[in-house]
């Protein structure tokens, strides 16, 4: 049995409902102006969002304690990379304790998807994902980052020292 509901007098008058709604808007506006609640909006250039330490940003090549690059050019990251954006050129070192080292280590940031697989694949903690988010650039700018930019850019303040030490590694027999 269907019931037809007729329009009552209270429903047909729409003006009270409009003022009720405007009252809620005015209340929220005053509360926001006084500052009793936190605003969701981030005023970007003035205040910056704090990302977690696990954030996957632009890459970092770590260094040894003496300042040379930790990477051993084992090519695990370049093989594992799903976007194939890493190119490594290896060379023989004059130092007898070092087997080989990368002459050039380049990451094409236009191809990179920042998945973090290179960080997972690396056995000696040579590649890390940094805290800075990726920077935009004009067409024709330098997007292929080399060792100078990956390991010794000014944001890193002289380079980040790797956790894995060469002598401890030899003692453990790795």
């Amino acid at each position, binding site marked *: 049995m269907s019931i037809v509901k007729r329009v009552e007098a209270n429903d047909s008058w729409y003006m009270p409902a409009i003022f009720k709604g405007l009252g809620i808007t005015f209340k929220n506006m005053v509360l926001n102006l006084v500052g009793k609640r936190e605003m*969701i909006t981030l005023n*970007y250039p003035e205040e910056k969002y704090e990302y977690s330490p696990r954030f996957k940003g632009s890459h970092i090549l770590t260094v040894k304690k003496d300042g040379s690059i930790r990477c051993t050019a084992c090519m695990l990251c370049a093989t594992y990379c799903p976007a194939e954006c890493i190119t490594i050129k290896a060379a023989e070192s004059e130092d007898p304790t070092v087997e080989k080292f990368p002459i050039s280590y380049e990451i094409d*940031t236009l191809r990179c*998807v920042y998945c973090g697989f290179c960080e997972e694949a690396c056995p000696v903690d040579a590649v890390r994902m940094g805290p800075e988010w990726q920077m*935009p650039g004009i067409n024709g700018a330098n997007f292929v980052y080399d060792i100078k930019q990956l390991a010794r850019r000014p944001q890193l303040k002289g380079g980040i020292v790797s956790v894995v030490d060469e002598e401890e590694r030899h003692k453990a027999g790795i």
Partner: protein
Amino acid sequence: MVSLKQSLKSFLQKLDNKSRSIYFLTQGCCSIEVDNLCSSNYDLQRLGYTIDIDDPREATVLIVSGWINPAFAEKIKEVYSQISGDKAVIAVGACSISKSPYVDENGLKLTDVLPVDIYVPGCPPRPEAIIEAIRLLEKTKENRETSKIIYGAIRELG
């Protein structure tokens, strides 16, 4: 006299404010980040950009993101031809910059379809990176054809 000069300068800069209206052609997961820009978290209108545009004829900046197939490329060309005045294109994300996030031969680059002004690398990039890209555009804007006259006049004022 100094205040007169400054007021003239600001008036001339306001004439060139046309490039602050943005048309979005987004698909894929980068569109979530671009929508986040327009929402209350990163309010783009707070910085003076108009984003609620339905017609590309009113816009001057085009933001493209997502995987581009030949059918979508035709639509991008259609929209680009309708944009008036000095045009600028921003490519957002790894898909539109270099075919697809992973290595395969399918898809098109945006550079095959249009001349791109600014790249925003990342998969997907942060909303702050897209704001930085739009601000970069304003710095490069001085080299554009119609705004060359305006910025030349500003320089002559000193």
